[in-house]
């Protein structure tokens, strides 16, 4: 154990490099061949399979599992990529426990689903190092601008490029991948997988990446509309919600997404500072990921405080269990009322809550948690949008084919209305937008 393990304040090197490496290794170990075949053998090849319906990208799960069982994982990978070009990342990050695996008939039969996610990873991993499996159609001469290189943008770009259109991706950051690169928990996407997958995806050809190009600053929607035959917006949610409390700007009060982004980009996690006592506010996947990773970095006490009951948490039961298993404490039914700071954070005060007649009420009784670091994980929202775009709630309004109200402009992923904010949903929407863009450009619509 290194010296600073129990040091107060926000400091680096609480645990040694070996421990750090093991803490951030794969959450789900990849299968070896034998394990994959045994796991695949359990699939019943269901008719009109429920798992397939539950998958937002409708991957033909029974078929790809059978292809693994019959010794052709490469064919299985093609089956997956036909529907979901980021099938490799989705295999790692999908909350399968609330998607395909939740409805697997073997979950019904034995309480143990076929491990679809891990099988998907087994299949997709076999071809990641090989040549790109799809061929581009002859070029059509049509051009498509994609804004944002996250899952939605990449899925859209790949599909339109495959159809023969020329694509330019405009990405605000210096690196692609979106939250695959900056948001997903490190133990879900190990060994720089997001960048490897991005490179592999670009193997289709016909996609030009332009980094450091931000819509609203460096480029404008009207400009893109002039220069391209179609525009796809996949900017995700770039702003974060605020607590609106005093001292929110105090040192060590941070936004969870930025913390995770910094963690994902760190070359050496032993150099990444973390508090001794950490509080995370929120109840979604981001809160869990921030809490768990804070703990794995060596924080002694991590508490996630959520304002509603545990069953209302957006994070799945599996994720809640994971947090608790890693030693993270979950406190529910408590809402932050004060940030205690003397320039630097020292504690946070919460009031208990209760649901009365369907509305959440803050009670008078409070408690205070001493802490030297606090992460806000209370949701992300849309950043500044071009005025022409119609909104639905707090997102860009789109129809069933991902069209926005502006002709020639499509949107998908977290920035667009409809669907859960998940990687796999972003892929589905990007892909569907691409199909509609293709149909439109080729004159079918």
């Amino acid at each position, binding site marked *: 154990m290194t010296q600073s393990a129990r040091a107060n304040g926000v400091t680096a090197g609480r645990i040694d490099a070996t421990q750090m490496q093991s803490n951030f290794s794969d959450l789900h170990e990849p299968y070896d*061949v*034998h394990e994959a*075949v045994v796991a695949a*053998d*359990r699939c019943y*090849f269901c*008719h009109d399979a429920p798992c397939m319906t539950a998958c937002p990208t409708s991957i033909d799960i*029974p*078929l790809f599992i*059978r*292809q693994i069982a*019959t*010794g*052709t994982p*490469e*064919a299985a990978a*093609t*089956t997956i990529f036909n529907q979901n070009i980021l099938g490799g990342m989705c295999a790692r990050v999908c909350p399968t426990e609330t998607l395909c695996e939740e409805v697997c008939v073997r979950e019904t039969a034995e309480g143990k689903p076929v491990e679809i996610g891990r099988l998907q990873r087994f299949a997709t991993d076999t071809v990641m190092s090989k040549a790109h499996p799809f061929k581009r159609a002859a070029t059509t001469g049509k051009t498509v601008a994609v804004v944002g290189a996250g899952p939605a943008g990449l899925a859209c770009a790949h599909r339109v490029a495959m159809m023969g259109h020329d694509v330019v991706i405009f990405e605000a950051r210096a690196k692609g991948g979106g939250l695959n690169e900056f948001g997903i928990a490190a133990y879900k996407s190990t060994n720089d997988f997001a960048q490897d997958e991005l490179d592999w995806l670009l193997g289709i050809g016909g996609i030009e990446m332009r980094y450091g190009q931000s819509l609203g600053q460096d480029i404008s929607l009207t400009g893109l509309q002039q220069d391209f035959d179609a525009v796809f917006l996949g900017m995700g949610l770039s702003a974060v919600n605020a607590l609106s409390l005093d001292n929110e700007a105090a040192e060590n009060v941070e936004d969870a997404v930025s913390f995770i982004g910094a963690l994902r980009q760190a070359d050496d996690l032993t150099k990444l500072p973390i508090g001794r006592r950490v509080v995370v506010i929120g109840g979604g996947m981001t809160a869990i990921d921030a809490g768990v990773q804070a703990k794995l970095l060596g924080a002694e006490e991590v508490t996630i405080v959520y304002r509603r009951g545990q069953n209302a948490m957006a994070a799945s039961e599996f994720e809640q269990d994971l947090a608790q298993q890693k030693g993270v404490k979950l406190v529910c039914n408590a809402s932050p009322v004060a940030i205690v700071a003397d320039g630097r954070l020292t504690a946070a005060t919460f009031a208990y809550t209760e649901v009365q007649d369907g509305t959440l009420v803050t009670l008078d009784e409070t408690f205070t948690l001493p802490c030297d670091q606090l992460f806000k994980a209370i949701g992300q929202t849309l950043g500044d949008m071009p005025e022409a775009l119609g909104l639905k709630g707090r997102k860009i309004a789109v129809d069933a084919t991902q069209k926005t109200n502006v002709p020639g402009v499509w949107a998908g992923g977290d920035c667009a209305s409809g669907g859960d904010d998940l990687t796999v949903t972003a892929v589905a929407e990007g892909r569907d937008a691409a199909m509609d863009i293709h149909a439109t450009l080729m004159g079918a619509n």
Partner: protein
Amino acid sequence: MADLTSEFVGIKSPNPFWLASAPPTDKEYNVRRAFEAGWGGVVWKTLGAEGPPVVNVNGPRYGAIWGADRRLLGLNNIELITDRPLEVNLAEMTRVKKDYPDRALVASVMVPCEEQAWKEILPRIAETGCDGFELNFGCPHGMAERGMGSAVGQVPEYIEMVTRWCKETTSLPVIVKLTPNITNILQPAQAAKDGGADAVSLINTINSITSVNLDTMSPEPMIDGKGTHGGYCGPAVKPIALNMVAEIARSAGTAGIPISGIGGVTTWRDAAEFMALGAGNVQVCTAAMTYGFKIVQEMISGLSQWMDEQGHTSVQDIVGRAVPNVTDWQYLNLNHVTKARIDQDACIKCGRCYAACEDTSHQAISMSEDRVFEVQDDECVACNLCVNVCPVDNCITMETLSAGATDERTGKVVSDDYANWTTHPNNPGATAAE
């Protein structure tokens, strides 16, 4: 991607996967859905003579055996040929063929063993636009009691006679479907060839009783307290079918006659194996009945991936590739010495290999106090039993001793000369090696 288009006795289909004559091909609804799912062709459920159709039992038709996890391994049935009127089937076949001209549609036929019956029905069926005929000489139950099906298929002279009648009647290809319920498959195959058949297809189902109900003391499937033998098919029959196909493909008299391989085809690999042993295409029944028509997608993707990997560009490329390597026991190389090898990293220490070898074979596997299992080369006869009982794939493999190494069991130095039983000193009939 490899080209899977297939041409079998002049009948073209987009892939070599046909549905065998059976319930999956019993009606227009099924066949249309099968074609939509991707099947290359169908052999329509066996048609009978005009007039009131046969009737089926109204109780269970199937018996089954299962492997672990209730995986269906063998199916037995007591179904007869189509129980729908001839005209209905013909009208449906006509419509389907018209809508799917690129798919193979072959009519399976079984009428009484009379010249007139065969010569009348074939031209009528040909009007549907079907691509050929398959003569059902295989059905082992029910129809056989009426002098048809395997009752014909078990008498080579009848096969030859009926085949000849058919060939005299139609210019379409005639495939003779053989029953495995005989002792030597070469005789019916030869008879079909002599009668002028364009091809043989095999196997039809095998006489069987899958289980006995110990409460009612009757075989399953049980109809009102009684049962009868049925026809066995599915993965369990594949080895029997493969051997019969290989025998026809490699025997002087029958070699060269096109073969449609049937019996337990469930995955692309099964199909590739049939084709390697000489089948020009394959037919599938039980796998489709177990998993649905969609199963063909795995067969298509798997076969084409494997062909790509092997550099085979057409289906014809693989047909019969393994036939030259099917030989008689007496020609196997007795100087080829192998030993079992256990991969200690893969071993899960279940001890099954030990039990098998120690109790029932050659005492060639040792077991230590801490459950390490090791092959004793001085006892291992290389029987391969341990490989087959080990639950971990590839955990035990057979290693070939190279020439010059000493076989610790016999004390002999391994030679790379080929030497078989025909020249072995222990063989009283040995011919001296020259």
